[in-house]
């Protein structure tokens, strides 16, 4: 919102109370998107417990973030846990089924670079090898507060998205 004008007071008439603002459609859409983040969890291990723990905090709803049951209705995919060779095609197809625009949060050390399973034969060394990742939330596992901080960082990223 680039300009807001509001000069209303209780004494003035209804016509004079009418306020307006000027913006672009892109900024309005980004404002709407960052205010209602629908999350689809892709939890493969213990980080998923911390992610659902964050759901119990009221801060997540204040930020407009809601957990959805199906990824086809979600904007944000949260990958919580290690991705191995058998899960990687599933993760890719889940990502491709999500509607545009979409963002991805990698939660926990396993999702970021494999964590303690980094040199293992079966674990993909970071889910950014499979899908593009926007926000990394570090920790093993991250606290629920860290996950909420990740949502705040994602909101900032959605707001200042650059267009051609």
């Amino acid at each position, binding site marked *: 919102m680039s300009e807001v004008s509001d000069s209303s007071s209780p004494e003035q008439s209804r016509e004079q109370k009418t306020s307006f603002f000027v913006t672009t459609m892109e900024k309005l859409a980004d404002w709407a998107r960052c205010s209602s983040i629908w999350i689809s969890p892709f939890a493969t291990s213990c980080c998923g417990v911390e992610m659902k723990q964050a759901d119990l905090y009221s801060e997540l709803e204040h930020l407009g973030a809601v957990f959805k049951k199906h990824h086809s209705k979600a904007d944000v995919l949260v990958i919580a846990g290690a991705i191995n060779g058998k899960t990687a*095609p599933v993760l890719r197809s889940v990502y491709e089924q999500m509607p545009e625009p979409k963002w991805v949060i990698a939660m926990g050390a396993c999702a970021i670079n494999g964590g303690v399973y980094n*040199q293992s*034969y*079966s674990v*993909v*060394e970071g889910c950014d*090898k*499979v899908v593009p990742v926007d926000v990394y939330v570090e920790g093993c596992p991250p606290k629920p507060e860290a996950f909420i901080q990740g949502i705040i960082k994602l909101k900032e990223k959605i707001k200042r998205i650059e267009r051609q």
Partner: protein
Amino acid sequence: MIDKGNINELAELVPITSLRNLVSDFKVTKGELFLNVKADSLVKTITFLKDDVNFQFEQLIDICGVDYLNREPRFDVVYHLLSISLNQRICVVVQVADKTPIPSAVSVYETAEWYEREVWDMYGISFFGNPDMCKILTESSFNDYPLRKDYPLNGSVKWSYDEKEQRLTAKSVDGII
């Protein structure tokens, strides 16, 4: 609660029952009774252990593979049995060479099906008589046996998404043994 039975009393039964014809060797180590059997007499042995009134091993807990890299024959397959009635545990050990199938225990314990598939997946020891002898844990394009001692620790392939081909590709890497 049933008291834990004396493992030595169980070991004394081995030479005087029909197990003496089936078992090639037995020993008590660290409170466990180990029976070494040949692959031919495996099914007869575990059937006897399940049905005999002195043993009553009703439950198959696990089937493990062990890789002794420089030994001949190379692998051990270990069957862990539990008797709930007598509160006893026993290990039945079969030595098996590489690329040699051994008989399946599915006819005695149905739960053996998935354990045998896991042993096949991790060590490459195949079991004849198993109704569904295929992979259970690794992906279908994975052609190695990761728990063998000569398999590299960090694996032989790494997965990544190829933007040009728009599909997941497995790139082979040099392994560290």
